[in-house]
């Protein structure tokens, strides 16, 4: 028997040059193409990306469900696949799609999971956390999709993990349940649980994550805190095309990008450019209808990253006209 894993300081997960290839020969497909990561204890780390960006393939590796085709990987200082008997008791994993027997009740399902864990809490404790106590005796197959998702989360929590992997934890949840799940994850974070989550909801990543990575085509395209990621990105001013020549400001004007008959300016000097624009409009007595000025958001960064293959040189930043 191997002893319990020491929860030492240092990264909970550390990966370098991580790769994963499916298939061999001509049909081989590389889903993960050299990923470097360090995830610290107590950190909430969000993995974003379009469908097929390699998020789930990466999670499979970190969880020890698949073996990397190249690269270094340590979870709690151990190989998550080879040493899974020592790593797993510390992990809770929630896969992207279900995996609960339809014929068991919620409580029976949780008791089954509980019996497989080294250090479980009670079924009632996790049912309370996901707000499903009153559904305990209902068959899993009779639950709504959102409720099933919460049972799935309860299964991941019953072993009292120190590291939680959540693959789209709130997909299919109604807005109220989503907020409840956020509150729960926030509680877990305060208990010091490290979390790696993927999501399609950018507001979820903004609300929960300490650091965010945006994956694209098997690589990490952006990595950092929300502020760091958004910081280097231009703000946008947009309004309905007034049909007259536009003033020269710090960024390039584009038309049609923000909608038909709209013109937009991407700028790193939002306040200055907006001030100049409004002065220019006032001088001409122009009303800029539909005027919007937006700070860069995670969404705008995400869309820029995701559109890289369509328009390779799409970054008209900073060059004054």
């Amino acid at each position, binding site marked *: 028997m191997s002893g319990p894993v020491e929860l030492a300081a240092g990264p909970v997960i550390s990966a370098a040059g991580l790769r994963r290839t499916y298939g061999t020969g001509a049909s081989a497909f590389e889903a993960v193409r050299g990923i470097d990561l360090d995830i610290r204890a107590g950190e909430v780390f969000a993995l974003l990306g379009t469908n097929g960006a390699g998020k789930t393939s990466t999670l499979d590796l970190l*969880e020890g*469900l698949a073996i990397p085709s190249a690269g270094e990987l340590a979870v709690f200082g151990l190989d998550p696949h080879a040493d899974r*008997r020592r790593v*797993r*008791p510390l*992990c809770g*994993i929630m*896969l992207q*799609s*279900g*995996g*609960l*027997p*339809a*014929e*068991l009740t919620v409580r*029976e*399902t949780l*008791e*089954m*999971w*509980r*019996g*497989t*864990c*080294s*250090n*479980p*809490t*009670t079924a009632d*404790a996790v049912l*309370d*956390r996901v707000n499903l106590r009153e559904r305990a005796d209902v068959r899993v197959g009779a639950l709504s999709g959102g409720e099933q998702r919460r049972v799935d989360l309860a*299964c991941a*929590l019953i*072993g*009292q993990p120190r590291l939680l992997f959540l693959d789209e934890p709130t997909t299919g949840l109604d807005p109220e349940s989503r907020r409840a799940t956020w509150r729960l994850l926030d*509680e*877990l974070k*305060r*208990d010091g*649980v490290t979390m790696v989550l993927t999501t399609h909801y950018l507001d979820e990543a903004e609300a929960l994550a300490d650091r965010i990575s945006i994956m694209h085509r098997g690589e990490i395209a952006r990595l950092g805190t929300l502020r760091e990621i958004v910081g280097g990105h231009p703000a946008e001013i947009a309004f309905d095309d007034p049909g007259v020549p536009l003033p020269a400001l710090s960024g390039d004007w584009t038309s049609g990008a923000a909608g038909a008959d709209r013109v937009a300016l991407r700028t790193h000097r939002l306040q200055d450019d907006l001030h100049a624009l409004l002065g220019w409009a006032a001088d001409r007595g122009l009303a800029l209808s539909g005027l919007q000025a937006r700070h860069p958001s995670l969404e705008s960064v995400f869309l820029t990253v995701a559109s890289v293959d369509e328009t390779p040189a799409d970054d008209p930043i900073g060059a004054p006209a």
Partner: protein
Amino acid sequence: MTAATATPATVGYGRHPLRALAHAEFLQFRRNKTLLFMGSVFPIGTPLLLFFLARGDAAPKPLGVAITMEMFAVFALLFVQYYSVLSMVTTRRSEGVLKRLRTGESSDLQILTAPAVPGVALTLLGAVIVAGAVYGSGGPLPVNALLMIFALAAGLVIFTLLALATSAMTKNAEAAQITSMPVMVISMVGMANIRQILPDRLALIADWTPFAAISDLIRLGQAGLAPGAPDDAATLGFAATFGETGRPLATLAVWTVIAVILAKRWFRWDDRG
């Protein structure tokens, strides 16, 4: 609320993954009317009904008991063990349960053993009921009960492995009705009274099918009839029966190896590949 996770509420709790998983399988088995019917009425009811019909008012003969026991074995191993494991493992895979369980602390062996437990338990229970009814009503006791018990145990292992291999090409529980046919047919052919009416060349092949070995051991153990011996051949004593176990044991060994190889090569945890 926050304190709940900080202090483990685990006093007095031991970790028993196989027990927890097998318990869950039992609950699901019990709720599956088809499996429940196939697991009880077939293997227990059919052999007993025929046993009591065939014996009439006469005293039961060793051969009659051997046929009853063989019939129990074929139903128990095929309809209870093979079919239930096939159906349950296939359902668990298509529900994503196998993949989900692999994210936890259970070992692969525990995850795959659990669906076999209800069938094993039901087979053992059925064996006790059938044996109790047959021997309790004056059926002659077996020459060598060890061989019969061994045959049943080996059969449970082999047919569990064959079920895992078969589930690889079974999309869902309904498809199991079709995909189970090859193993079902190959096994039925191994029943003693079917081999007796096969043309010689086919019978020679049928002797090496998995259920043929089990059938041989049951006839040998119950009635002292050597493998291949006609129904009215001279019967062997306890010690002599061991000398006739060569072919059936070799057959079981070969099929165990085949079943392990097939299960290892073909088995999939996940429908996606």
